[in-house]
C-alpha cells in the first residue's frame, strides 16, 4: 500500500484546436516526494497542472489519485480530495485583506472535515486560523501585512498567499506552478526552508520551476517537458547530462555547466 504512488498520470493528452499542448505524458508522484517539472516556455507545464486539477478538460488520458480514477471529476471535487494547486498568475481575492482570503478555503467542506476549525471552535474562528496559517507561511504576525488588502501586496506575499490557500485545505499534495518566479534571491532563500518544511509535514509537492538552482536543492527527481512531450525523468544530474535536454532547454552546453556547479 505504501509504495502506491499518491498521484499517477497516464498518457495525458491535450489539444487546443490544432496545437498539441500535451502529448501522452505519463508520470507519478510518490508519497511525501518532491517532483520537479522543468521545460522551456510554452512546453505545456501549466496545461499539465490544469488538466490534472480539471481546470481544463483533458482530451484523453487518465489520472489516478491514491489509486482512484479522478479523470472525470470536477475541479472542486479534486481539491476536496486534497489535491491542491497554485496558479502561475496569482489569483488572490483582491478586494479582501490577506487574512480574509483564507476564510474562503477554511469555509470549504474539506477544511470543515479535516480541520475541526468551525467558527468558535477550540482553534478559534476562521480569522484567527487564517492569521495562524499566514504566520506559518512567512507573514509577520505582528505587522500590518496580514491585514493589508491583497491588491496592495507585493509579488512575494501573493505567492505565499497562493500556498497558504492550499495549506488551509490540509492538502495531501500541492501542485506549485512557478512559486519562485518573480521573487528576489533573498525572497527565494526564505521560501526554500518553507518548501522543505512542507515536505517534512508529509505533503507531496510537484514544483514547476524555471529557477533550476533552487529547484535542485529541494527536488531529487526531475521531469523535463518539451513541446508537450516528456523528454526524460531522473535525478538533476542525470537530467542535466542528457543531450536532448541540453539542446531543448539551454541551446548551449556552457549554461548547463554553470547551473550544475551550483546545484
Amino acid at each position, binding site marked *: 500500500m505504501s509504495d502506491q504512488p499518491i498521484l499517477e498520470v497516464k498518457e495525458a493528452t491535450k489539444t487546443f484546436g490544432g496545437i498539441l499542448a500535451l502529448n501522452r505524458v505519463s508520470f507519478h508522484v510518490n508519497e511525501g516526494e518532491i517532483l520537479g517539472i522543468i521545460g522551456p516556455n510554452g512546453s505545456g507545464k501549466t496545461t499539465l497542472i490544469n488538466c490534472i486539477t480539471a481546470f481544463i478538460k483533458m482530451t484523453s488520458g487518465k489520472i489516478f489519485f491514491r489509486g482512484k480514477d479522478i479523470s472525470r471529476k470536477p475541479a472542486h471535487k479534486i481539491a476536496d480530495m486534497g489535491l491542491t494547486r497554485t496558479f502561475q498568475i496569482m489569483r488572490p481575492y483582491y478586494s479582501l485583506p490577506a487574512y480574509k482570503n483564507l476564510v474562503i478555503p477554511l469555509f470549504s467542506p474539506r477544511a470543515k472535515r479535516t480541520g475541526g476549525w468551525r467558527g468558535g471552535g477550540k482553534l478559534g474562528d476562521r480569522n484567527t486560523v487564517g492569521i495562524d496559517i499566514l504566520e506559518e507561511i512567512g507573514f509577520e504576525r505582528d505587522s500590518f501585512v496580514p491585514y493589508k488588502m491583497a491588491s496592495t501586496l507585493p509579488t512575494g506575499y501573493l505567492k505565499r498567499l497562493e500556498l497558504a490557500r492550499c495549506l488551509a*485545505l490540509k492538502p495531501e499534495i500541492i501542485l506549485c506552478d512557478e512559486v519562485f518566479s518573480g521573487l528576489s534571491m533573498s525572497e527565494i532563500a526564505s521560501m526554500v526552508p518553507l518548501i522543505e518544511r512542507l515536505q517534512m509535514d508529509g505533503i507531496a509537492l510537484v514544483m514547476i520551476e524555471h529557477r533550476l538552482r533552487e529547484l535542485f536543492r529541494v527536488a531529487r527527481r526531475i521531469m523535463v517537458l518539451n513541446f508537450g512531450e516528456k523528454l526524460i525523468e531522473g535525478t538533476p544530474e542525470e537530467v542535466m547530462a542528457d543531450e536532448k535536454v541540453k539542446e531543448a532547454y539551454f541551446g548551449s552546453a556552457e549554461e548547463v555547466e554553470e547551473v550544475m556547479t551550483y546545484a
Partner: protein
Amino acid sequence: MEQRRKERIDRGIKVRTDGLYALMSWRELGYLTLPRLVLIVGMLILPFVMPSMYWQRVISIVCIYALLAVSFDLLAHFVGLVSLGGALFIGVGGYISAIMNTSFGFPPLLAIPIATIAGAGICTLLLFPCLPLRGVYFAIVSLMYPLAMARVIEALDILGGTDGIMGIDSFPNRWIEQYFVILMVLLFLFGVRRLVNLDLGLVLRAVKDNDQAVRASGMNITFYKAVAVFFSSAMGCLGGACLVHIYMWSGISLFALDFSILPIAATVIGGAGTIVGPVLGCLILVPVSELLRDFGTLRIVFYSLILVAFIVFRSEGIMVYGQRKYHQIERWVKV
C-alpha cells in the same frame, strides 16, 4: 491663549476595528448609530408623515421596489451576477401568492411567506442552468423569462389569462399593509448587510472576485451562486406577493419591465454595493416616477436620463458620497 484644531470624529473609531472596541464613549456610539437610527425611525414614521391614501400606497410601492433593489445589489455587487430578473421574481411571487389565496383560501399573511419560499425555489431552478456559465448569460436569461412567461400566460389563457386573477384578499387594513412592507425592507436590508460580512458572504464575494480560486479551494461555485440567487429571488418574490395583496389583483403586468429596470436605476443613484443606497434610491425615484404617472410609458425615458446623468456626473451614488462626507465631519478640540 488656548489653541484649538480640527479633528475627524471617525479617526478614533476606525483605529479600533471590529465592533467591540468601537464603543468607547456614548458620543462615538451616537456617531456610529445616528445614520442607522435616522433611516429606521424615518421609515417607521413615514406612514404618519403622509397619511393620505394615495401617498400611503406610494410608500408601499417604494418598499416593494426597495426589496428588488436590495436583491439586485446583493447579486450584482457581492456575487457578480447582473440580474435583470426583477420582473420574474415579482411575477412568480405574485402569482403564487394569488393562487394560494384564491384557490386554497390562505390568508395573505400566510400566503406571502409561502410564495416567498416557493417562489424563490422556482426562480432558482429556472435560473440554475445559466449559473455555471460566466458572462452575460445570466442577465439575458433573467430578462427573457418574464417576457416569455407573460406571453405563455396570454397564449395558453392559464392563470386568468389577460384578465389576471381577481378577488384576491387585501391586507387586514392599510396600517398592517404599510408596516408589514416597511418592516420587511428593514429586515432584509440589515439581514443582507449582515450576510455579506459573514463567512458565507465572504465566499460569495470571493466568487465575484475570483471564481477560479474558489474552485481551487474545493468549493462548488454553482452551489454558492444558487444560494445567493435563492436569497435574492426570495426578496423579489416577497415583494411580488405583497404587491398582489395591495392591488388585490394579479395579472401579466407583474412581469413588466419596470420591475427589472427601476431597481437598477435606483441602485446606481443610491450607490452600488452599499445595500442601503438602493433603498434610498427607491425612496427618491419611485415617488418622482409616481408624479410623472401622466406621462405613461415615457417614464422609461426619464429613468434613462436620470441614469445617464448619475453615471456621468456622480457615478459613486448618493450613499457613497454621503458616507464620505459624514466621515469627514470634524470637531474642534483643544490642543
